[in-house]
């Protein structure tokens, strides 16, 4: 430890919040444990994913849970060439709004693609869950979405 050396130390500031999910988000997260994507019936035939307790447009109570996906369509996206440490993937990916089959709203998640040339609006993608033993009942139980064609043939 030289006299002119400036010290460094890791310092972590953390607030360990625990949130109550409520019945609807709770059902959605329980579905993830089972490897299923659930939405909820909203007003006028809509299917809201992730589900909400109230329809965001009409404010009416939402109805039954319905299974959606596992595939869907990319509505818009943003490519991340250099992931940050807290990003969901440690390799290049795209954030994407994905309208799952059977849903009328879109879900924000990530698509595993290695370049911006590998994704475009309108692409078909499908969900990749973590292995059952690795799931914790959280959004991260969805590891990512992947191109339905396996990334080939475009």
């Amino acid at each position, binding site marked *: *430890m030289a*006299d*002119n*050396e*400036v*010290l*460094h*130390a*890791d*310092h*972590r*500031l*953390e*607030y*360990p*919040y*625990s*949130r*109550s*999910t409520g019945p609807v*988000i*709770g*059902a959605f*997260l*329980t*579905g993830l*444990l*089972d490897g*299923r994507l659930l939405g909820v019936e909203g007003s006028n035939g809509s299917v809201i994913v992730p589900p909400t307790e109230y329809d965001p447009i009409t404010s009416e109570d939402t109805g*039954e*849970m*319905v*299974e959606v996906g596992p595939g869907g369509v990319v509505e818009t996206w943003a490519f991340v060439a250099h992931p940050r*440490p807290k990003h969901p993937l440690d390799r290049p990916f795209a954030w994407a709004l994905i309208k799952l089959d059977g849903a009328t709203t879109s879900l924000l998640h990530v698509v595993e693609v290695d370049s911006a040339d590998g994704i475009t609006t309108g692409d078909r993608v499908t969900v990749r869950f973590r292995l059952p033993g690795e799931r914790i*009942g*959280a959004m991260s139980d969805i590891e990512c979405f992947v191109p339905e064609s396996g990334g080939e043939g475009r």
Partner: protein
Amino acid sequence: MTETAHEPVTTLATPIRLDFDFTPGVAQSRFLKGLAKATFMGQRCSVCGKVYVPSRGSCPTDGVPTTDDVELPNTGVVTTYCVVNVPFAGQSIEIPYICAQILLDGANISFMGLLQEIPTDQIRMGMRVEAVWVDEAELTPSLSSVRYFRPTGEPDAEYDTYKEYL
């Protein structure tokens, strides 16, 4: 609607976390490295002569860099104190305990320290105290090198000698 093999999810852990690479800078690094050698290192202002510990590298009154290093002794005076009786999350010391402002002999600013080896109803302003360091093998460049302060048993300091520092 559907059967599930799992208990329904009712809570979700959502920690908010910030990871810092903290650096105390040149001046406070000198103080912290002193702690690793079981010494209190301060700095004297070349204009007003006041001794700051830990030094921030400049004099807040005169606005000049402090370059004159001063090794301070292990002893000082309790200028004021607080007896902590209230438990709180993350508390590492058994309550009740005494949190004291300690003015080291030769210093012109006090800092906060833990006071032990005295019942909480016997602490008083002006009490003479000394630092108790951790074992040599456990010394690190951090305030955890100071285990706590304890009374020396010397007569109390006169109020006039520390009233400026309250």
